């Protein structure tokens, strides 16, 4: 299983702080599509992804037990 964390306004949109999903073998891009679909998230495309607190590209493959976090960049200043 994998823990998926939602940060900032993604948490409000998903209605959850984190979810448990079985994602081993999938790429970050796959996970974005699955999670966006399941939790009604619109802006995951532009969110950055961390796997085990390390920046991950869309091509990276998830391993069993990895913790995935979606970090949406914000523009306010």
């Amino acid at each position, binding site marked *: 299983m994998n823990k998926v964390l939602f940060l900032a306004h993604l948490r409000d949109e998903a209605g959850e702080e984190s979810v448990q999903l079985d994602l081993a073998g999938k790429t970050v891009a796959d996970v974005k599509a699955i999670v966006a679909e399941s939790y009604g998230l619109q802006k995951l495309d532009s969110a950055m992804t961390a796997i085990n*607190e390390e920046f991950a*590209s869309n091509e990276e493959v998830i391993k069993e037990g990895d913790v995935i976090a979606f970090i949406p960049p914000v523009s306010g200043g």
Partner: protein
Amino acid sequence: MSNRYSRQTLFPPIGKEGQEKIRSKHVLMIGAGALGSGNAEVLTRAGVGKLTIIDRDYVEASNLQRQQLYTENDVAEKLPKAAAAEKRLKAINSDVEIQAIIGDATPEKLEELADEVDLIIDATDNFETRMAINDISQKYEIPWIYGACVASYGMSFTVIPGKTPCLNCLLKTIPIQGMTCDTGGIIGPTVQMVVAHQTAEALKILVEDWDALRSAFVSFDVWRNDYTTMKMSRAKDPGCLSCGEHPEYPYLSAENRTKTTVLCGRDTVQIRPPHNEGVDLKEMAGKLKALGYEVKGNPYLLSAELEENRFVLFQDGRALIHGTKDMAQAKSLYSRLLG
């Protein structure tokens, strides 16, 4: 005031030598809103040699809750933020040379300024300018510090050309319709926390304590008590067009830029964003209504009106800002609402 900086020079990583370095440096601040106010005040008090501040906006009542350099007087006089900031900063520390530029931080303007600055601090409210800052930073080898905030959520990252990944490595493209302070709200402590992270990094850079820099991307939520760091050791993209092996600095070129046109005789400015990713008009209508806008629309466009602000937004992100011929003012409204 010979002991003016004594508490700072007593701090061993700065010391007298560090203070002299701070004194010899020129910082460019892009934006004089909440982050710009906070960053500028810290660096001015710390005794930086010269601070150039560029901003296209003027002070409004809704700024006062968090933009620490401004007063009710500035609102009454509708002072440009750069001018009001200059006045206040000079009163705080007359040692510091303050250069205020009232206008748009276009890539041309940034290139003009780049030659003589040691550090760029991002205090802007949109990713188009940030990507231009990012390219300027790479092209002229100037460090820059990204900072942004909305609601109770803030983030920061330090870009050192030749060492760290850059913003283009992380984002790949300009994220459209990010939440902004005008749509998601913002509280003072979020601003202060981002400012604290940016200015700590700024001081390290100014005293050239490179090993002390934070290499991780930090983000936090001061209301929900989250603090997350993301390590960046695998983030640098060798094919990045901004910092990779064959840089093209795409955000300094004309096709990646918002096209702004004054429509003659109509008292209207048209704004066309560079990437046609589309806007969710229904969601935008909801946000605008929450802000008090009167919103009408159809599947192709929405029109919104609040006091002197009147505009039409099309599904492809293009907007007509009515009641003005001022491009900077129109772009400012657009950025505040659409990021």
